[in-house]
């Protein structure tokens, strides 16, 4: 599965990986806002940000080309709107749409590939996000792989039974069979959740996931946060000056 790669990248041990999640979330938001509010000289600004993010990925020992390719997942959606704007006689806007969405995705990827998701969620909780929502998100991520594998096995089994989707014939039956498969998956997930719940209660779970290593915001985190926030803001202001 695609996201397993991202999970592996996020378990690295570089200086970027060791930073407190909050020291990455704040600069990420500033970068995204700086990019989203840029109206002029967007291609240059986007190019500079790609260079900075690529350097950051290299520093974090995350495969740079792999990350650049992965961020391109947003391009099919962005490119179709960019093409419409282009054909509508506004090529600059089309290019700006595609570049902004690509660089934003790369910036998010930089943070997620250098921070394990549970740590990222802890960082968000420390910044005031609702704990209940974050715990649901954490459980969702934890069981995503398991339930997805089960769904994949069911889909493989259906394919092995020659449940082809190439013609209209018997499509009503196949539709109902797919619905039945999903109902079974729902029921199994529900039962799995009940079993997990019982097992967690037996281990003393009272509704809150304990943290084994509470994060501390140290001097290195402050320096990282300030520097990585300053770079996109400085580039943005420099771009504005050039245009003026």
């Amino acid at each position, binding site marked *: 599965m695609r996201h397993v790669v991202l999970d592996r990248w996020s378990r690295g041990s570089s200086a970027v990986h060791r930073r407190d999640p909050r020291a990455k979330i704040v600069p990420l*938001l500033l970068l*995204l*806002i700086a*990019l*989203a509010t840029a109206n002029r000289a967007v291609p240059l600004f986007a190019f500079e940000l790609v260079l900075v993010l690529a350097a950051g990925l290299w520093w974090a020992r995350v495969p740079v080309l792999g990350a650049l390719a*992965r*961020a391109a997942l*947003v391009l099919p*959606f*962005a490119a179709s*709107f960019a093409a*419409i704007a282009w054909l*509508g006689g*506004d090529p600059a*806007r089309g290019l700006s*749409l595609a*570049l*902004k*969405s690509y*660089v*934003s*995705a790369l910036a*998010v990827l930089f943070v997620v590939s250098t921070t394990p998701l549970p740590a990222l969620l802890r960082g968000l909780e420390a910044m005031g996000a*609702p704990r*209940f*929502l974050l715990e*649901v*998100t*954490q*459980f*969702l*991520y934890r*069981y*995503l792989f398991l*339930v*997805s594998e*089960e*769904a994949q096995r069911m*889909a493989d089994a259906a394919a092995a039974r020659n449940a082809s*989707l190439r*013609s*209209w014939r018997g*499509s009503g039956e196949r*539709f*109902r069979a*797919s*619905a*039945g498969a*999903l*109902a*079974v*998956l*729902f*029921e199994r997930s529900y039962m*799995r*959740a009940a079993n*997990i*719940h019982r097992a967690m209660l037996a281990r003393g*779970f*009272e509704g809150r996931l304990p943290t084994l290593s509470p994060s501390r915001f140290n001097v290195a985190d402050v320096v990282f946060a300030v520097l990585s926030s300053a770079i996109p803001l400085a580039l943005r202001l420099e771009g504005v000056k050039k245009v003026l």
Partner: protein
Amino acid sequence: MHIPDGFLATPVWAAMDAIAVPAVAYTARRAQREFDEARVPLLGVLGAFVFAAQMINFPVGPGTTGHLVGGALLSFALGPAAASVVMTAILSIQALVFQDGGVLALGANTINMALLGVLAGYLPFALWGGGRFRRLAIFAGGALSVLVSALAALSELLVSGVRMPLPVLGLSLALFLVSAVIEGAITLAIMEALLRIQPGAARADREFARPGWSRVLAMVSLAALVLASVGVLLASAAPDGLERLGEQTGINSRVRTLLHTPLSNYRAAFMHSDVLGKAAAGLAGVGLVYCACLALGRMAARNRSL
């Protein structure tokens, strides 16, 4: 339907984030009250189910498949507040891990799919889920959840100035309608299969025998939701249409403003910038509607507790 970063104008994504943050906090608190906190694994695992369910394809034509989106199904099983929380969690994972939807646009995506979509999916079920129109209610719930989310997303893109020629807009609307029908059919098929395996799986079986205020409120909310989605879309697709109609029919010359409101002409009079003015007027409008709904909700709750 997942809007990436870079597509929405700053006033739009900022306004949507500003609305989404308290709305999500409210639904999370409400879901927490309804669900024992120790049952968090259930919500997480069902969220994982919706993710995984998207791997199972449904035949909808020669060589064409559709898949479940899941907002309505979750609301039938868990109730709207918990379903909203699960959908918000799904959207967060999609934005962070799958690069599906932006981080700044997460507010807009959450409002479209986790709040409006779930509510639109749930209301027909809340109204008619217990009676003889149950199948229709399930189908309508699935269809409306997708339709309302898609129309809201399209409106936001149009308000943000994303160019969309009329044929493309028409094609998008046609695709949304088809997707809505497919979601309705898939949701209905799954619910029927699920109720055969586990009778009582739907929350409606346990909850919706209540008449009176809540039913009226649900009806009004559903109508408002659908009308607002279609209205905002029409307004953003053809912002000058009504004015032109007014000029053509000569109504404009005869109309006198009876009450000079600060939101007149969809723009806050105290704001000088065009975009900021429109956004502020929109926000104020949403705020007013929210306050009205809150007051009605409080009244309904007080009446029920007496």
